[in-house]
């Protein structure tokens, strides 16, 4: 399966930290103009307008002219599609990190209780502890 040119543009749009920050702000506020967004961003209004145009071109946001300003809002469905795959990856790593944390902490607790053991009976629990040095045979 290949990405379409559309998808590539979308990824590129999302890959930029400034644009992601703009999306964050737009999601938080519902709507905003380049001017109001500039107040919260360390870049020029001109740069923000450029980023907003790009986001609009790939369909992540909509713009509606109001007088001299354009009011932007996020197209939630498009953003949801774009972030779904990404959130899957992030969620997977979160789960893995939590598992690593659990295993390492268990192993450390077992190490410590061995060192500090006044009661050797607690030591056999180590049999299952993930810290044991097992050479790879897989």
């Amino acid at each position, binding site marked *: 399966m290949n990405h379409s040119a559309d998808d590539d543009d979308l990824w590129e749009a999302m890959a930029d930290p400034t644009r992601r920050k703009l999306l964050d702000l737009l999601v938080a506020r519902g709507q905003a103009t380049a001017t109001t967004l500039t107040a919260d961003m360390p870049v020029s209004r001109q740069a923000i307008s450029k980023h907003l145009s790009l986001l609009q071109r790939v369909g992540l946001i909509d713009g509606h002219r109001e007088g001299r300003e354009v009011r932007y809002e996020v197209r939630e469905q498009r953003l949801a599609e774009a972030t779904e795959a990404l959130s899957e990856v992030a969620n997977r790593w979160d789960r893995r990190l939590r598992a690593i944390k659990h295993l390492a902490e268990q192993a450390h607790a077992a190490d410590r209780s061995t060192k500090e053991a006044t009661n050797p009976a607690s030591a056999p629990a180590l049999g299952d502890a993930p810290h044991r040095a097992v050479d*790879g045979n897989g």
Partner: protein
Amino acid sequence: MNNFTIERDIEIEAPVDVVWRTITEPELIRTWFSDVADVEARPGAVGSLTFRADTDAPHIVGITVVAADRPHRFSYRWVYPPGERATEANSTLVTFTLVADGDERTRLRVTETGLDQMDMADAEKQKFVEDHRHGWQVQGDRLRDLFASGHSSSP
């Protein structure tokens, strides 16, 4: 290519070397990751991770170790097409960074870079989707969380 990156981290109440072993030793990798792990923490080592090993359709993912700097950094490329060499263009790069915070605590960070190549991870992605299908709601908090790497005070 735009090198889209996911970054996640976690604080672990264990010494850095314990965490290092957990993420690099095959027998331990099997306790938190793939069902089978053929991994050697040596730059250039080519191995594999097997998911769904106990099903009719096991999924084997090749991995190529890029860096193994015990106990600070472990990185590898994966999800490249079977039989090919891992390159920047056909794989994503996973990097674990371990930072000791005293003798008993470790900050573990993982980044995955090159996610614009993600269509190649379909098999594993599919497994995840099957297991964890849930409506993804666009919420500010979730987005900020997801994109934390984009505008946090990274060094």
